[in-house]
């Protein structure tokens, strides 16, 4: 049941709980209690909105920053990650395999703001060896949703 609820609300978190219960074919009380439990257990960590800021005309810059670090003795990467993710400018931090250690997403109003964060906050950290900043030029698809085109129903009414 949990998987079904999660699969559904991952795509549509705004659905009315009564409707969700109908769609899944279970009692509303069950849906409510499961959701509550999953929120408490932090399985559900938040309900966010996917926004195409470009269309609002508000300037936003997002950068993906590759970060190489030296893990701290006894702490591994977690301590370093914490230093990085505590900055409110940081959107996401992933430990990854490959040529570098962390992938950090930063959102700012201008290129300058982001660059400044990297040069003044991120790079000077003791354990950070190097950074490489990649600015996002265009978002095509995010969270499984294509951003560049409106979905259109082009089916025609056959007889019948």
């Amino acid at each position: 049941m949990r998987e079904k609820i999660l699969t559904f609300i991952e795509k549509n978190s705004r659905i009315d709980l009564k409707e969700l219960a109908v769609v899944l074919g279970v009692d509303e009380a069950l849906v409510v209690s499961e959701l509550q439990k999953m929120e408490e257990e932090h399985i559900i960590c938040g309900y966010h909105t996917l926004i195409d800021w470009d269309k609002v005309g508000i300037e936003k810059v997002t950068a993906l920053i590759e970060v190489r670090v030296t893990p701290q003795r006894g702490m591994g990467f977690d301590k370093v990650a914490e230093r990085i993710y505590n900055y409110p400018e940081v959107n996401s931090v992933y430990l990854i395999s490959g040529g570098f250690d962390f992938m950090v997403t930063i959102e700012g109003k201008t290129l300058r703001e982001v660059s400044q964060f990297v040069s003044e906050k991120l790079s000077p950290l003791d354990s950070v060896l190097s950074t490489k900043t990649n600015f996002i030029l265009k978002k095509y698809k995010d969270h499984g949703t294509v951003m560049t085109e409106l979905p259109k129903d082009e089916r025609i009414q056959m007889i019948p």
Partner: protein
Amino acid sequence: MRDPLNKTIVGIQPSGIRKFFDIVNEMKDAISLGVGEPDFDTPWHIRDEGIYSLEKGKTHYTSNAGLKELKIEVNQFLNRRYGLSYDYEHEIMITVGGSEAIDIAMRVMLDPGDEVLIPQPSYVSYLPCAVLANGVPVVIELKAENEFRLTPEELEAAITPKTKLLVLPFPNNPTGAVMEKSDLEKIAEVVKKHDIFVLSDEIYSELTYLDKHVSIASLPGMRERTVVINGFSKSHAMTGWRLGYACGPRVILEQMLKVHQYAIMCAPTTSQYAAVEALRNGDEDVAAMREEYDGRRRYLMHRFREMGLECFEPFGAFYVFPCIKEFGMSSEEFATELLNAQKLAVVPGTAFGDCGEGFIRISYAYSLDNLKKAMDRMEAFIRELRKG
């Protein structure tokens, strides 16, 4: 000048509700629940295989009966899903949609004057195809109180010495009715007793919501007297690829292949390569779409209950078939009024046979958001009608 036309074909009535749909297609802000094809696009990995086949220059004819690997996959699919088993070399052919298979199966099985039993409400092609094959269509009117299943009594009552073929359209468009194994067993007894054949149109077989679909061909003694028709349109959301198949005894399939060979040559090659991928790696897509349809189906039934609109719970395809008799209007009047008053398009039940009178077909091949808006409009419309 002489009359250039064939009298049988001229005699076939064009669909009476074309005008209604012309209005629907013109109306800009209308919400339609009329379309009978999946709202999902074909899963990408299937489309990708089609594209890849083009890149590799697979742009030629295939053999008449279809790609060998596709026929093998069809057989394996039918086996793992419904326990059917065919000789892919002689008992399976790939067609241009299930529609072609319906047409040629009738042409191959009917002699002039042979009667074809067609349960209605049902898909609109059976009747004209029977006429085009010089058969005599005999309609069996299914009843709401039987949840639009075919009963052995109804079948028995329609059989005459001239009866040759029974069309079995389940899961059903437009009612959403399914035939369970116990229902089919009784039908099979009557079929065998009277030595008639079955054309089992199972195009919606992957879309059932109670139990797995049962094919009548899987029942004892039925394989040799059944042509199973299926395809990719509904299960894999591949309507535009125009790809279906027919399976049945070699003696029938050989003749069908002959007609297909002279009239069609072979089904579209690109589609066939895509379909191989659909059957090899598409089960999860089918399951996901089924799950999605099922949620919408439950939602619609819930809304009908709230509105107090009578509707038996359908367990197949992607249609519901609520009863609108309480409003004292014909199906077509109801649909027209609903379109005018609320800009909501549904299909009058009579489009699928006279016994569809008093019902409307609602398709749930639409997003939940769409269905929600549509049901709000429906509810407002019904409230007004009940005020009188």
